[in-house]
């Protein structure tokens, strides 16, 4: 987003806040939706989390100190909201993360809002076998094409560690696809 400082001022000023927030929504709703969806897998859950994310952004924008990019801050909120949503959902339903993933992947095959072919389903199965943090890194890099520097700000992990994590994730996925 061009001229971020000026845009943040618009977001904070009472007279320009609503219009600026509308612009923010238009700019981020799609990429954020797909980022959240890649974590929670289900459309209805992604819709809930996306709304919660923007409500949090709207509420806490006045506390945004500009220590990171606006983009990183918003994505951090979206990522944390997604992970918290899943934790709470699994706790309510008495599932472990792996159990939830198994059920969600099985549901994906008949999901109206998943038009992936067999190999895309296989990719999701391969991703599900990775450690949780590695899954996140892979999804953000491969599906969202987020740069390592931005990912580092969002996840609070060094660029080197992220690159290593992605490299190992790719190797494991390739191995899974080869043998399955």
């Amino acid at each position, binding site marked *: 987003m061009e001229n971020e400082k000026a845009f943040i001022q618009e977001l904070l000023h009472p007279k320009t806040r609503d219009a600026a927030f509308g612009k923010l929504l238009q700019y981020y*709703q799609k990429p954020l939706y797909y980022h959240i969806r890649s974590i929670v897998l289900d459309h209805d859950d992604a819709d809930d989390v996306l709304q919660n994310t923007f*409500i949090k952004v709207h509420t806490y924008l006045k506390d945004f100190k500009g220590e990171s990019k606006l983009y990183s801050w918003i994505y951090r909120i979206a990522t944390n909201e997604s992970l918290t949503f899943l934790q709470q959902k699994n706790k309510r339903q008495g599932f472990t993360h792996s159990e939830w993933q198994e059920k969600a992947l099985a549901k994906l095959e008949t999901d109206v809002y998943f038009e992936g072919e067999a190999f*895309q389903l296989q990719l999701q199965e391969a991703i599900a076998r990775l450690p949780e943090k590695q899954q996140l890194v892979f*999804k953000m890099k*491969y599906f969202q094409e987020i740069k390592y520097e931005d990912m580092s700000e969002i996840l609070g992990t060094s660029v080197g560690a992220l690159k290593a994590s992605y490299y190992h994730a790719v190797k494991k996925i390739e191995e899974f696809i080869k043998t399955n």
Partner: protein
Amino acid sequence: MNPFNLNNPPKNPSGFTAPEGYFESFSTRLQNRLEEQPPVKSISFWRKNAKTFYGMAAILVIGLGIGMLWRWEVQKEEEAHWSAIASYVSENTDLTDEHYLELIELQTTEVPVTSDTEAEALEEVLLENEALEYSITQ
């Protein structure tokens, strides 16, 4: 079927889609939810840091409690110590309670000494405290 290649992903590698018109209606639905949100109350410094203050208060109370307990224990010990001495003295000496009291009085008598009237003051004290004179001269 084309083999899947991570280095050459398809157009929609994740396979996820959204319902038709979802993004067009999203801002309206979000706006409705924002209007339903209660206003965010500002939290005072004290409430914001309530946990810290409660923790500090708890540490203070525990610290005072430990201090008081220690003092009480020390006092008890001292009382037991003096009680043991008193028992020993009464069992192993010929000192009566009166002698004992005299000794205590002697110990607590302050002898004021000044450079100018040192001798006078001493004589005065000795005259007033016969028991002290007796114990010094014997």
